[in-house]
């Protein structure tokens, strides 16, 4: 058969298949949505739930103050991310060092990561956020918000350093051999050959960790600062209604969903790149 027509037919077949799966996906979504919209309101408690969680007026009233409080979350996040990245990279490099003289450093780092990965973040925030100001520091340095942020940074540095370490170890030994055979020192090999490849590989998992961080910033509210979660609690008490919590959830979703999608997209691209065959 003529290859052009067979190719044409294959494309046509694939188009049909794609159209079919789109139709199935759309239809099933519509059915499920309709069921939810029809049956949930028919439940006996629905009216009460709607009034206490989905009150439109309360949502509109409290939204601006929630947004304003969320700005604090954003600021904590923006300070934490670069600190975590730098500390985590340092930890990963220290853990990866091979020099015998650096054994104490490697051991210390190993203990650090074990401890902070083993303790729930919330507990770290309590211990550091209440503990350090208890040392009787000056007014400015004794604020819980500072130490809550420090606690987040310490905990997440431990997580992220493991991601970096996995990235560094995923670069094949033969890359190191090639660099060393050119005469590069081990520091140059790390900086010029290993790290650029490692960091590229860990960007997607790193983003997932930072999305978790974005949510965990709200835990800082437990030691005092009025960020969005605490603000929502205050509004809830004032209005005697749970709608502010829904408002807070909406704000979080508005940030985390695009980030999650981006991370997934990067991950998928990476997979394509590493499994894709070389162009000959």
């Amino acid at each position, binding site marked *: 058969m003529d290859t052009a027509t067979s190719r044409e037919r294959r494309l046509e077949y694939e188009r049909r298949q794609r159209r079919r799966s789109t139709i199935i996906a759309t239809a099933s979504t519509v059915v499920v949505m309709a069921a939810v919209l029809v049956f949930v309101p028919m439940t006996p408690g629905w009216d009460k739930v709607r009034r206490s969680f989905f009150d439109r007026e309360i949502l509109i009233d409290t939204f601006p103050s929630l947004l304003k409080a969320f700005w604090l979350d954003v600021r904590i996040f923006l300070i934490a991310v670069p600190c975590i990245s730098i500390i985590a990279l340092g930890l990963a490099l220290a853990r990866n060092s091979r020099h015998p003289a650096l054994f104490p450093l490697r051991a210390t780092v190993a203990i650090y990561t074990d401890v902070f990965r083993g303790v729930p973040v919330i507990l770290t925030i309590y211990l550091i956020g209440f503990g350090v100001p208890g040392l009787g520091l000056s007014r400015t340095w004794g604020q819980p918000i500072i130490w809550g942020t420090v606690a987040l940074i310490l905990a997440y540095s431990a997580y992220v350093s493991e991601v970096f370490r996995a990235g560094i170890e995923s670069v094949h030994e033969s890359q190191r051999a090639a660099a060393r055979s*050119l005469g590069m020192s081990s520091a140059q090999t790390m900086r010029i050959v290993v790290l650029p490849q490692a960091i590229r590989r860990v960007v997607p998992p790193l983003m997932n960790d930072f999305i978790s961080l974005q949510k965990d910033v709200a835990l800082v509210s437990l030691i005092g600062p009025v960020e969005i979660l605490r603000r929502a609690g205050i509004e809830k008490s004032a209005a005697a209604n749970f709608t502010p919590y829904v408002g807070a959830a909406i704000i979080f979703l508005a940030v985390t969903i695009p980030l999650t999608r981006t991370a997934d997209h990067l991950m998928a691209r990476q997979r394509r790149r590493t499994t894709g065959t070389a162009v*000959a």
Partner: protein
Amino acid sequence: MNGTRLRLSNVEKSFGDRQVLSGIDLSVAPGEVICLIGASGSGKSTLLRCCNLLEPIDSGAIVLDGIDISAPGLDPDPHRRRIGMVFQSFNLFPHLSVLDNVAVGPRHVLGRPRTDARQRAIELLTRLGLDGHCDAFPDQLSGGQQQRVAIARSLAVDPDVLLLDEITSALDPELVGEVLDVVRTLKTSGMTMVMATHEMGFAREIADIVCFLHEGRILESGPPDVIFEQPTHDRTRAFLRRVLDAGRM
């Protein structure tokens, strides 16, 4: 010049309790080409990796232009630069363009200014017929092209000796020729080379000395005509017969 560029004397190497190299003595004169032949697992790669100090040796010495570069406590990096290595699987840096793969040595190892390093890389790539691919990334090239880039990369730091480890084994047969041509050119230009190879025809053509390795020992060595025509050792004969039967000669 004392007539010996690279000398291995009584080199021993083991991995755990497995002895991989025993009593290796080898002398390479400037401009000479040594071919290492032998069954897979006989220690060819390990021998080359030891020469380049990628593996520490257990005893013996590796002497480059009269300096024992395997001496404990010696900083191996400057000496490693003087011994280039080309690997079976190319080992190009996938995150760098072809040009940067070659320029990275002159730039960071020789400390040349950026423009000089790039200039040097372009010269080398042009010499190897790759000047059209400077901006490509390694995974966009054929295996033969990648291996030529790898050769250019190792030449870029002006090595005195080049080690080649089965550099055509990972290539499709029709791409072997272009890489071997480069090695021929290097020999003409006087490059000192030690190469492990399964290409017996090529070894015969290019080698000044052929060494037959068996279980980590150099059982027999000499000019190619002698090794291939009148090997004295049974094992060498058996190996060559096997290779011949497999149609690789």
